[in-house]
């Protein structure tokens, strides 16, 4: 029987296999950030251990970093202590760090691909659940906890069991204004937040093949929101073109050897998936979430659902408490929901292509007077690129705020937070209660919907702008 792409990558990294024990899997790249690593480094110190492969490890500062006044010390002493701890640990253990102000700094899942460190067929881990992002290159990439971070630092391996395989096939052409974000929100709405549990997802089909690397990263990024630890896409010419010439991509004869290997990385025709899901791209429209988990999403033309109509008791209770938290009434058209803040950024949609899409809609228009819009590039390199293209001017002229790079309002560990009761349209990945600030209410949207929403102050699809006369 043939193998899936994920099985191939997995098998190529098994260091040791013994009956009755987990496989020992080699890790090609370990990304580190300040929040989930301090206790792991402490563990090493207590046990007198070193980092086995500092040359396969890379650290950045992203979760806590302010996006204003970024060259001054962090004002919040607790955040500053955490960032300082990372700096000390990186220096002590010989790990490369991209600190605030560095041109390589940015959200951990944006900088890996941007530097060319993320390549097809690799195993990549990080103490962060959105590590699945790197699967867009055909890498097996997944999030781990702090104990596992310590394990990888010490041994460059992880004990693992093979997981089940699920294919998500998306075929056809996406309608205008519908993006990768809408595809993945539709997938999660269909299979549920637990639908991918215990599986690795492989996204395939003509729609996926036609997507850019940025769009593929958006899709793989949210695999965890469907409960899957990893999601991946077979590498192809689009992947190779993206990587060619990046600082850490192979060169010359090495490039040829790498491409030869990468070209073998696809699911065999006779491989069997444990579960298969199909989506018709032409049937999709812009998606927005109405509830407090990413599976609670609907096409923007729909209305807030009525919990009483939900048969499953658990789902009904969840919908009831979601509506109470979100301050929404069943039956309200989603397009009539007023939004206070628009957040464009995060490892889901903080890349250059996302900023371009939003800027194209904002150009020559003004953000609604009662709405604030925060634009936070995913990395310093994205920021510089956008400025070179003049996108910063477009955002500023429209009345949006142009900020420094980081996770920012995706999780509000820095000062960028929603106030209690404040409602956002956000291009990030989690609409959990309190995720963007205590009592904050989040609607997940694509960059295009975010921009259109900023212009009208209500949840808006880009196609609505003409009719709205904005």
């Amino acid at each position, binding site marked *: 029987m043939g193998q899936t792409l994920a099985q191939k990558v997995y098998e190529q990294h098994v260091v040791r296999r013994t009956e009755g024990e987990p496989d020992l899997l080699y890790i090609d790249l370990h990304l580190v950030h300040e929040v989930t690593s301090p206790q792991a480094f402490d563990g090493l110190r207590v046990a007198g251990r070193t980092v086995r492969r500092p040359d396969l490890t890379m650290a950045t500062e992203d979760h806590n970093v302010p996006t204003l006044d970024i060259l001054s010390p962090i004002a919040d002493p607790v955040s500053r202590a955490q960032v300082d701890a990372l700096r000390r640990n990186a220096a002590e253990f010989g790990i490369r760090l991209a600190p605030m102000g560095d041109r390589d700094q940015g959200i951990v899942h944006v900088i890996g691909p941007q530097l060319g460190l993320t390549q097809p067929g690799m195993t990549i881990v990080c103490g962060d659940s959105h590590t699945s992002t790197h699967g867009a290159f055909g890498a097996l990439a997944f999030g781990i906890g702090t104990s596992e971070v310590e394990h990888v630092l010490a041994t460059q391996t992880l004990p693992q069991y093979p997981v089940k395989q699920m294919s998500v096939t998306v075929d056809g052409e996406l309608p205008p204004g519908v993006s990768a974000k809408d595809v993945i929100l539709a997938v999660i709405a269909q299979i549920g937040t637990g639908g991918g549990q215990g599986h690795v997802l492989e996204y395939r089909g003509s729609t996926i093949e036609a997507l850019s690397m940025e769009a593929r990263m958006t899709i793989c990024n949210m695999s965890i929101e469907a409960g899957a630890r990893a999601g991946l896409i077979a590498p192809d010419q689009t992947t190779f073109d993206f990587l060619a010439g990046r600082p850490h991509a192979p060169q010359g004869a090495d490039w040829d050897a790498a491409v030869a290997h990468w070209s073998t990385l696809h699911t065999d025709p006779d491989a069997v998936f444990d579960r298969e899901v199909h989506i018709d791209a032409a049937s999709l429209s812009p998606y927005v979430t109405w509830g407090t988990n990413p599976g609670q999403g609907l096409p923007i033309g729909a209305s807030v659902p009525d919990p009483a109509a939900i048969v499953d008791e658990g789902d009904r209770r969840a919908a009831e408490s979601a509506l109470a938290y979100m301050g929404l009434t069943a039956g309200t058209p989603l397009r009539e929901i007023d939004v206070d803040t628009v957040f464009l950024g995060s490892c889901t949609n903080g890349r250059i292509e996302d900023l371009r899409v939003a800027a194209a809609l904002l150009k020559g228009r003004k953000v609604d007077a009662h709405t604030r819009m925060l634009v936070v590039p995913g990395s310093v390199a994205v920021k510089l690129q956008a400025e070179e293209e003049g996108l910063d001017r477009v955002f500023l002229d429209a009345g949006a705020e142009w900020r420094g790079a980081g996770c920012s309002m995706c999780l509000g560990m820095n000062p960028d937070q929603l106030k209690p009761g404040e409602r956002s349209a956000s291009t990030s990945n989690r609409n*959990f209660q309190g995720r963007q600030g205590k009592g904050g209410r989040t609607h997940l949207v694509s960059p295009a919907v975010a921009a259109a929403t900023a212009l009208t102050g209500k949840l808006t699809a880009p196609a609505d702008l003409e009719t709205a006369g904005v």
Partner: protein
Amino acid sequence: MDAFTTHTGTAAPLRRSNVDTDQIIPAEYLKRITRTGFEDGLFVAWRTNEPEFVLNQPQYAGASILVAGPDFGTGSSREHAVWALLDGGFRVVISSRFGDIFRNNSTKAGLLTVLLSQEEVELLWKELEADPDLEVTVDLEAGEVRYGARVVGFQVDGYTRWRLLEGLDDVGLTERHLEDVTAFEERRPAWLPRSQPASA
């Protein structure tokens, strides 16, 4: 890591599904660099805003077993969620489905996650609501949850069970096989990337 063999205590029925790790402990509590002291962040939004929240009810305040709805521990990979539960006095979480990373983290830190069918969870919820003082025993050695006259079996893979029973830490176990790791490293293609700046 502390060994886990068997635990007897009272239990709290948490009738909620999709309890993500942001609910277990919000981001603002993740700034600490220690491994303990996270109990103040445990379910803090619900403890603060919802008087009827199960852990706000005095009869469940001393619970050491949490019985939750499906998809407990989804979302972020923060192991702080496991530490917060341990710091808050919990040794066991029972649910019909867990987030993968949460479950993995719990086995590394000595919190036992027990998978029961949703019917069994509902049954236990009813018993606990009728009698908050009900003693529940979770026996890892026998693979059983016991309360009243009821005995329910549960599965844990043999390796994880052994590690938990012995309280063994993974790094030490892997270090026994470092020669295999070295041999693997010698076979890796030379063109694979390294993190040092390209110019160095």
